């Protein structure tokens, strides 16, 4: 986070001087870092073929499920975690209703494209045409949630955001327009052909995963640019001391609303991808549990750090899936996936409360707080 600010002034700063992989990475010249990042991205694109690696490959993937589909699921969970990380990790606004934006993105796409939609006679658009409108709608939803909750913090904000997601779900369940459990069918897939064949079909999920990956990479670049700018500094200042930030001239209202709507936008991206892959959505997808899961992913991975959010987002999708097909004493562990997942989270949080790949700042904040609770 701090590299831009201090890089050239002092060779050894508090962030770069530390050891470990990230300390090493931070000390490398720009081109080394670029090469490493490119290599990581290239490897990510090869993930669908991980099962072909002898010995370890088959251990990583789950028997009996379609691995590329699992990867695609991971990709939209990662997107959601990245988006929520902006809201929770950067701006420090605890949002328990994040699934609401995922829902707005998905429903926005469905309403504009599905033949079940009341608007079908007017719209019936292609997937790609619906995407910008759906994303604009999610950003607007972010503002609608952000505006009345500007004065709220912490627990109070969490409750209101929770209510927001429930409102969206209940409206979707109970109104004719949003078709409740029956949902929307026939949502078109993303466009494109390759050698005369449709790229985004129904059988092969690999292209969807790759699409998700491209979107993730774009989001990473965008969020990183924001983080290392006036915008990121303002978010951080708001998170650390909102009143002091405002007295130092930070337009807190504006930047909090931006955090909400950028977070919403990224969540909406997850939603439009989801709708485009599934071809069908209904209200039972967008349950509260989903929000909690994504938040758990962000916190587990390391709130305030993109690498952490990516890992956390991938794990919340991967771990429950991986339990499928493992049977202990005749019972399939998949049935106990959430219980076991809960145990895993508890263990991680006990051993590493700052998250798997913590933001250094967040880790320090946590330490400070611990000191306040139990002064030495």
């Amino acid at each position: 986070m701090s590299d831009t600010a201090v890089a050239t002034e002092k060779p050894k700063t508090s962030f770069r001087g530390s050891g470990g992989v990230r300390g090493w990475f931070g000390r490398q010249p720009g081109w080394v870092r670029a090469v490493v990042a490119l290599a990581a991205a290239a490897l990510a694109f090869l993930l669908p073929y991980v099962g072909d690696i002898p010995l370890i490959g088959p251990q990583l993937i789950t028997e009996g499920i379609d691995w590329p589909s699992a990867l695609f699921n991971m990709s939209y969970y990662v997107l959601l975690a990245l988006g929520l990380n902006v809201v929770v990790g950067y701006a420090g606004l605890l949002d328990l209703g994040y699934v609401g934006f995922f829902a707005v993105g998905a429903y926005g796409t469905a309403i504009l494209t599905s033949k079940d939609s009341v608007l079908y006679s007017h719209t019936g658009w292609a997937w790609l045409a619906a995407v910008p409108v759906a994303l604009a709608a999610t950003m607007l939803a972010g503002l609608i949630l952000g505006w009345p909750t500007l004065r709220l913090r912490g627990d109070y904000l969490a409750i209101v955001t929770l209510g927001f997601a429930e409102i969206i779900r209940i409206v979707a369940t109970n109104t004719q327009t949003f078709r409740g459990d029956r949902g929307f069918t026939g949502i078109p897939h993303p466009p494109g052909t390759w050698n005369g064949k449709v790229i985004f079909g129904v059988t092969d999920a690999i292209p969807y995963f790759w699409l998700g990956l491209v979107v993730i990479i774009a989001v990473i670049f965008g969020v990183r640019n924001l983080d290392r700018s006036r915008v990121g500094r303002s978010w951080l200042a708001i998170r650390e001391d909102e009143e002091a930030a405002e007295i130092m001239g930070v337009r807190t209202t504006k930047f909090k609303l931006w955090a909400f709507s950028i977070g919403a936008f990224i969540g909406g991206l997850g939603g439009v991808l989801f709708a485009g892959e599934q071809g069908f959505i209904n209200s039972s997808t967008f349950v509260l549990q989903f929000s909690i899961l994504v938040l758990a992913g962000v916190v587990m991975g390391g709130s305030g750090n993109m690498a952490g959010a990516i890992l956390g987002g991938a794990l919340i999708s991967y771990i429950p899936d991986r339990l499928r097909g493992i049977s202990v004493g005749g019972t399939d562990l998949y049935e106990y996936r959430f219980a076991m997942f809960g145990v895993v989270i508890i263990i991680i949080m006990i051993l590493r409360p700052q998250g798997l790949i913590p933001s250094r700042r967040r880790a320090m904040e946590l330490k400070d707080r611990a000191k306040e609770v139990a002064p030495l």
Partner: protein
Amino acid sequence: MSEPHMDTPEELDRMNARPIDEPAPTGADQILDQGVRDPDALLEVDHVTLRFGGVVALNDVSFSLRKGEIFGLIGPNGAGKTTCFNAMTGVYRPTSGAIRFQGQSIVGKKKHEITRGGIARTFQNVRLFPEMTALENVMVGADAHHKTSVISALFRLPRHWQEERSGRERSLELLEFVGIRRRAGDVSRNLSYGEQRRLEIARALATNPTLLCLDEPAAGFNPAEKAELLELIRRIRDTGVTVLLIEHDMRLVMGVTDRIVVLEFGKKIAEGTPAEVRDNPAVIAAYLGVPTDAA
């Protein structure tokens, strides 16, 4: 979220104080009441009263600051110095009365608007952004006048680069100015107490203020540090910034200020040059605790 580091009762009372109605209209009679209005006035506190429920924290306080001076606001603990300060920087809204900065009312303006308008402040208890580096802290202040939008930050448009560079240069200059440039890359929580106080001043200066308000900047300092601070305050004034200094240590204030206002129990009890104030019986009484009617 970090707790506000102010006196808790004040914080609570602020909630009560805020919604209290509009400032009383300031008619010509009030101006007459104050005598001739100072044409050089940079900031005018005009019959300001501030109540927290039943407690009158400021009672009809009036004074004005002139451009380019170092102005002291002193008084015993609990006299209302910080409250007055908070009213001037938009944290509290006066129950009645007016506060004008460069001729314009600032009552009811947002805190960040007041800051961008030219009033910067530090805090009685240091309130830096603890996990940001010293340089980043100052850059937050410098950002007050930046115009990089989310879009230009997102796509790294020229304005982003230009403002990052100029803001960074200016911030480093300010760190140099307050004498902690070598700590630029350290997170501010790792700075010593004295360095943190200096960093707060640098952060406030980065907003390009016309008026800099320092809230007990010498609290917890030893005599050598106090002397350095006074020297820094003079240097700040020499750059053309008007300084308002809050202190309860009279001796410290006497050495550096041009004019002083003394508050006690929310009322102004004296105003004048350090020499005048020092000999004022009401001030002596306030500081020594003699009942005012006996003085």
